[in-house]
């Protein structure tokens, strides 16, 4: 039997990732003060982390259900665009969204101004409210897409039957929509919960203080402000246990994640003809909730473009190459692992990649800081480590995007390739890469956009000289240079969307028949 493709590189890539995480874990453990003391402040951090993730999951999914139902029932101009837009928050830099949310819901934002005219006090979204609001902004669209996909698995013939029999919406809900919802909602809740558990950038910008600090943020503070490696170590362990435990539980209920856009199937619906005002309201609410903050970023960004310090441009360049490096690393790792798993007979392989969601970027960063520290100035490794950690965080998503496509190639062309003697590099070059090109472009774009917008591990290492664009923007916000920060936000938004678009468009070009 010929050597399978990825039989060596796949386990090597997966092993490297696991080794990098374990090395960080060991380094962190070596600095922990035994016996471990988990004080009242740490308990407060843990409670807040779980509580905000619970609320974020509940609100995201509760908002998503009526929106998804409205989108499933209605056909209107711009609907496809709106469904595509629901995928956008995934590649939107967190700090850009935060700036947009502040412009709309902040103390000096549009809503507060409106309240002021009515003689009401302004809103304040710092603390739990802001953290949950931002999480809902990012995860309501994700939940909506999951539910929408679930309902789209209902055969169109059943809705034709509904029209034929003239069934009222309540009956349609009970017989068709509810059974699917019951399957999808636990998974959506679990996914949002896990994502929010490891939230850092949102907590850094909108949370903080004793009452609104997540575990990730507490690791950062212990490390950066107190240089208390023992406490950082304990918090990292707790983070790993909590997020890892949640991810394992989530594996049981998780629906398959389909991130691709433009696969929206049109189904003619005859039910709910009289309910259009309700649906219009939900679609309008969702569109406003997503579009207003983005619009605010664009408007204030255009005003701020002229007031930016030159450092913004140098960090734009830095971010661009860090993201390029990160995307290249991501693709190398993801291709090897996906090729290996695509031929594995073991069904659990795919699910295991999700465990990567539980790995805390700040824990990995802290560990590698400790490892590098005795040998060299960690600051010098800030950008390569950032690129690597970003690639590792995006890896579960990339593998899940590539794996089904790759599996299909082996099903469709495995025997033909074998009969023609296509092995190794020739198999990659002539068969695999051309066949999965759309997925490859999409995954690379996702990796680049996630890396470009990431405000995480780089905050641990950063020195005043070198900064990525999100870090630069965070510093401008911290020093109240709001206009300059807005300008940087617009550039960051353009860079993230631009890099995603570039990769995705490359993938879509010459899509093979």
């Amino acid at each position, binding site marked *: 039997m010929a050597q399978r493709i990825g039989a060596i590189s796949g386990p090597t890539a997966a092993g490297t990732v696991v080794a990098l995480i374990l090395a960080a874990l060991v380094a962190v453990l070596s600095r922990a003060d035994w016996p471990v003391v988990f004080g009242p402040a740490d308990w407060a951090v843990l409670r807040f982390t779980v509580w905000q993730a619970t609320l974020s999951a509940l609100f995201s999914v509760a908002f998503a259900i009526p929106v998804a139902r409205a989108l499933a029932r209605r056909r209107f101009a711009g609907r496809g665009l709106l469904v595509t837009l629901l995928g956008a928050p995934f590649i939107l830099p967190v700090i850009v969204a935060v700036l947009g949310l502040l412009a709309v819901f902040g103390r000096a934002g549009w809503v507060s101004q409106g309240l002021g005219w009515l003689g009401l006090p302004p809103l304040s979204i710092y603390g739990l409210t802001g953290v949950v609001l931002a999480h809902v902004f990012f995860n309501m669209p994700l939940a909506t897409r999951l539910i929408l996909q679930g309902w789209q698995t209902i055969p169109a013939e059943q809705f034709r039957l509904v029209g034929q029999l003239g069934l009222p919406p309540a009956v349609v809900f009970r017989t068709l929509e509810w059974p699917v919802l019951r399957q999808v909602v636990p998974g959506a809740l679990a996914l949002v919960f896990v994502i929010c558990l490891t939230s850092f950038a949102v907590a850094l910008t909108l949370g903080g203080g004793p009452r609104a600090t997540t575990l990730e943020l507490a690791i950062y503070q212990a490390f950066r402000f107190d240089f208390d490696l023992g406490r950082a170590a304990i918090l990292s362990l707790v983070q790993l246990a909590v997020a890892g435990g949640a991810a394992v539980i989530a594996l049981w209920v998780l629906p398959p994640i389909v991130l691709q856009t433009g696969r929206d199937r049109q189904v003619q619906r005859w039910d709910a003809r009289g309910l259009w005002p309700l649906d219009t309201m939900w679609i309008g609410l969702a569109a406003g909730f997503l579009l207003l903050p983005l619009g605010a970023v664009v408007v204030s960004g255009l005003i701020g473009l002229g007031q930016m310090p030159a450092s913004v441009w140098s960090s734009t360049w830095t971010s661009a190459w860090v993201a390029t490096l990160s995307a290249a690393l991501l693709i190398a790792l993801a291709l090897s692992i996906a090729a290996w798993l695509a031929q594995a007979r073991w069904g659990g392989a795919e699910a295991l990649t999700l465990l990567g969601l539980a790995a805390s970027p700040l824990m990995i960063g802290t560990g590698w800081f400790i490892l590098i520290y005795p040998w060299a100035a960690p600051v010098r490794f800030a950008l390569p480590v950032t690129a690597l950690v970003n690639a590792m965080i995006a890896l579960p998503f990339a593998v899940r995007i590539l794996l089904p496509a790759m599996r299909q190639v082996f099903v469709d062309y495995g025997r033909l390739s074998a009969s023609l*003697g296509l092995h190794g590099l020739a198999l990659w070059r*002539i068969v695999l890469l051309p066949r999965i090109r759309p997925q490859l472009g999409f995954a690379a774009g996702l990796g680049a956009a996630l890396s470009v917008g990431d405000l995480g591990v780089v905050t641990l290492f950063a020195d005043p000289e070198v900064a990525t664009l999100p870090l630069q923007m965070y510093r401008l916000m911290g020093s109240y240079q709001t206009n300059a920060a807005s300008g940087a936000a617009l550039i960051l938004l353009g860079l993230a969307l631009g890099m995603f678009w570039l990769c995705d468009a490359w993938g879509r070009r010459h899509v093979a*028949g």
Partner: protein
Amino acid sequence: MLQVDGLQVVQGDFALSADFKIKAGQRVAVIGPSGAGKSTLLGAIGGYIPIVTGRVVVDGRDITNAAPDKRSIAMLFQDGNLFPHLTLAQNVGLGLRPALRLTADERQQVAHALGRVGLGDLGARKPGDVSGGQQSRAALARVLVQDRPLLLLDEPFAALGPALRAEMLDLTSEVARHTGATVLMITHAPEDAERAADQVLFVDGGQVDAPRAVADIMANPPEALRTYLGR
């Protein structure tokens, strides 16, 4: 020449056994009800299904444990015989060199093969831009350049209409005559066997009967074959 000695194949709870010999250049139709083991037989000879016991010998060489591309076999499957993202010429070229870096001489060979199957000027097209019959012709052009002593056909023309299928079977016979290959083809239609085969292998319930001349077996079919044909 194809020699199958005491072959045993097990797939789940299905078992197939075969023991037969085919002379070089013979065209053999493999006939039998669905689930009888026709595809299993071709899969085992082609190297896609592990062989438990027995030997497969092609032109005096034991290929029982060789990789699919090292078995002196060209094979066409029910579907997916061409890569849709490659041109017809590239698809044919794969039969000469899997790495697709062809010499001028080899490119000439590809063009010649395309000409022989009537696709002389379509080499630059992709499979999606030509008809089903033309796709089959391109696959046969590849068989031509592969120039292997044994050709296995797992119903590659099943999706074509009757007239087109007959045309492809004639072309297959022509290609086989040109390369001198022995042909084993699965078919459901007795008229296909009568048109394009010299012998028939009847497969039923995991048993492969000894090959018989087409005219002989059609004139005087055994009980199981009569049931299958509905005669």
